[in-house]
């Protein structure tokens, strides 16, 4: 069983719970809840295929699928994990052919929409005692832990808690301490995507990318801290923007577009009103990250050039956005994203910085999934180092086998969804390999 199956199930569980929380808000929402429960049933069916039951544990270190730690899912569904633990749910046993009603009960229970436990016995809570000693004790990457901390920090802002720049800086310090001069692991982790908390994950990814970028250019530690802070908070203004506008799959109305265009100044104001170090740079980055080099973009800087850090964040912001799925467009591969950045070098992006960014990332940035001419699929770790993740027939390689892509003929870059591989999930594997 792969982490991907566990993640898919947890994502479906999270979605269904969120839909059920709003199920009484109208027929459209009811339909969405029905669809989400059906997706959960399907994910459950795939997860338990060929087995009598599957146990998911909500442990202190994260989610476990049977005894295997799911580090990536633990980061991505950190809120779900905390919710389950706060409700005293240690283990969930899902029987093969778990009923739709039981799965819906589970989703409602973990989301706080109901206190009913699954009644039909196909989904059982705390039936298996949690035995920490039997669990996978593979250490979770420090980077991943910091990633989860940073998400919590951003979530607290959206809950209306005052922005504490000292806490945000602490997160940046964590990334700096956990990452090395070699950008591979950071860039791998920066491929995490989440469809429910797009802004938070995007902001953390932008922070990781910016720190790697800043290191590549040669900024000193103090500047890296400021750059990381600015990147992590560059979209903080989005928390005050109507989420519906951000996730609108269609064409934005004038009003929605006006809302979206306000997020830089909302972010800058939020940061300026906060207390703590690095405020000036972070406010400037928040305000300027959509300003173009030719004076276009928004807001209007009246001919003033954006700060260097704003220009850097503008590039990593675009890179992460292009490589991520959005409701209004599909994700593109890393190579395509770099090509699009190159096309914008000059009028939109600082050409020097685009060049340096592309040099740092390379044609196949860490996390790129490459289909070789012989049908194998490899994931780039750093430079020419990669791991084989799929055999020519499509079977997964477990554990992934290291290899060099130097001299190999690459047929195409693949999207994670097409390859059936989640690059960020391999962080611990990559960090643990020689």
């Amino acid at each position, binding site marked *: 069983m792969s982490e991907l199956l566990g993640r898919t199930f947890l994502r479906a569980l999270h979605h269904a719970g969120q839909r059920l929380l709003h199920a009484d808000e109208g027929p459209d929402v009811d339909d969405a809840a029905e669809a989400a429960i059906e997706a959960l049933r399907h994910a459950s069916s795939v997860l338990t295929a060929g087995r009598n039951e599957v146990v998911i544990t909500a442990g202190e270190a994260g989610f476990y699928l049977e005894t295997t730690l799911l580090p990536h899912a633990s980061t991505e569904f950190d809120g779900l994990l905390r919710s389950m633990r706060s409700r005293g749910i240690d283990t969930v046993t899902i029987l093969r052919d778990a009923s739709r009603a039981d799965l819906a009960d589970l989703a409602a229970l973990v989301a706080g929409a109901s206190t009913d436990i699954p009644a039909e016995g196909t989904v059982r809570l705390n039936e298996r005692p949690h035995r920490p000693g039997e669990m996978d004790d593979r250490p979770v990457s420090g980077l991943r832990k910091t990633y989860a901390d940073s998400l919590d920090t951003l979530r607290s802002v959206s809950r209306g808690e005052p922005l504490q720049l000292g806490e945000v800086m602490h997160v940046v310090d964590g990334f700096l301490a956990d990452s090395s001069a070699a950008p591979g692991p950071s860039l791998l982790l920066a491929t995490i995507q989440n469809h429910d908390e797009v802004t938070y994950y995007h902001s953390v990814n932008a922070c990781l990318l910016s720190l790697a970028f800043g290191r590549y250019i040669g900024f000193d530690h103090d500047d890296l801290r400021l750059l990381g802070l600015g990147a992590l908070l560059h979209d903080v203004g989005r928390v005050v923007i109507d989420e519906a506008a951000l996730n609108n799959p269609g064409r934005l109305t004038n009003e929605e577009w006006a809302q979206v265009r306000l997020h830089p100044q909302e972010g800058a104001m939020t940061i300026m009103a906060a207390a703590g170090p690095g405020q000036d740079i972070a406010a*400037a980055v928040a305000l300027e990250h959509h300003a173009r080099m030719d004076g276009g973009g928004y807001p209007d800087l009246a001919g003033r050039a954006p700060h260097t850090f704003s220009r850097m964040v503008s590039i990593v912001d675009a890179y992460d956005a292009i490589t991520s799925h959005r409701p209004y467009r599909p994700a593109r591969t890393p190579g*395509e994203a770099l090509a699009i950045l190159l096309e914008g070098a000059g009028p939109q992006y600082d050409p020097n910085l685009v060049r340096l960014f592309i040099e740092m990332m390379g044609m196949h940035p860490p996390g790129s999934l490459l289909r070789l001419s012989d049908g194998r699929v490899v994931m780039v770790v750093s430079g020419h180092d990669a791991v084989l993740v799929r055999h020519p027939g499509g079977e997964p390689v477990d554990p992934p086998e290291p290899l060099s892509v130097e001299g190999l003929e690459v047929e195409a870059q693949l999207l994670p969804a097409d390859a059936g591989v989640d690059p960020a999930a391999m962080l611990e594997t990559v960090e643990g390999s020689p």
Partner: protein
Amino acid sequence: MPGANGATDLQPRDGDPHADQLAALRRLLDTVEDGAATTAIADRVLAAAAAHREPGIVAFRDLLRIETRTSRYHRLLRTWVGKVAGAIRAGDFATAGLWMRALTEAPIHSSELAERMQLAMAELTRPDLLEELVLRLAAAGDPPEARDLLSAWGRPLVDHLIHGMEVEDPPVNRRHLVEYLGMSGTGDLSLLVERLADPRWFIVRNVAIAVGRTGRPEAIPALERVAAHDDDRVRVEALRALVSLDTEHALDRILAGFSDASPRVRQAATSLLRACPDPEVVPGIMGLIHSGSLNAADARRLVEVIAERKGDAPLDALSELAAKRLVVGVARVAREAARQALVERGEYE
């Protein structure tokens, strides 16, 4: 720095709309073997980043310019109040001045927003904060970097400082208040000039000192008006201020001070002469002595001023005075003083 994985091949997918871009990317990465070029670009980026100054204040100015929603504008101004007050409380007067100017120099787009700005300024001008400002400035030794802050604050601060001079027991010595008054008037001199018409002599005196400290020659006409003030304590400070601002005519103004009926003014003029670097000081003093307008005490002090100066001209002047014969009155006093000075120099037997 190059060495990223640019060597492997990547074929654009069939019908890929970005095929041309990928080809360009390919070409770019093929040129990246020149590490020196990359280092040069990175160095330029580092230099450009270091050249940015006060990004927060720049961003704040932009926000003031582009924000048109009244509620957000109000929030922005509240933030501004916090910035200035915070910097003052931290003793960072230079930063406080930058934030202050970010608002006071901002363009105003509508009467409503202008009114909001005035309200923000009024909120900042709380007596407790102003008093804390004065105390912190004095504790910091009247730092010159506070000038931008004080001059941008303008009238509310001038009013506060003048008030501090009126009370029996000011929070700090009045000389500090005068110093800050001078800094406050640097930007808008009229704030001080109008105070020269105050009916209270001690206020006019302090303001005259402050005007002199501004370094603004435009204040000369106003100072000339108070140079004839009834109170000689005012005239003394007006003379000092005029001499400091009107360098071209400083000596003439000092010499004119000896025609004042007040010994206090003439004493001040003597002090100014001592400090005056103009080589025409000695001829000027000789002219005064020869004019016969001085009294004996002033004549003696002025001969001493000549004697304190170095060079041939003072020696020649003393010798000329000492050689006088058949003189009486003030001229005799001057001659005796000159002879005494020459004796002390070993130039006269």
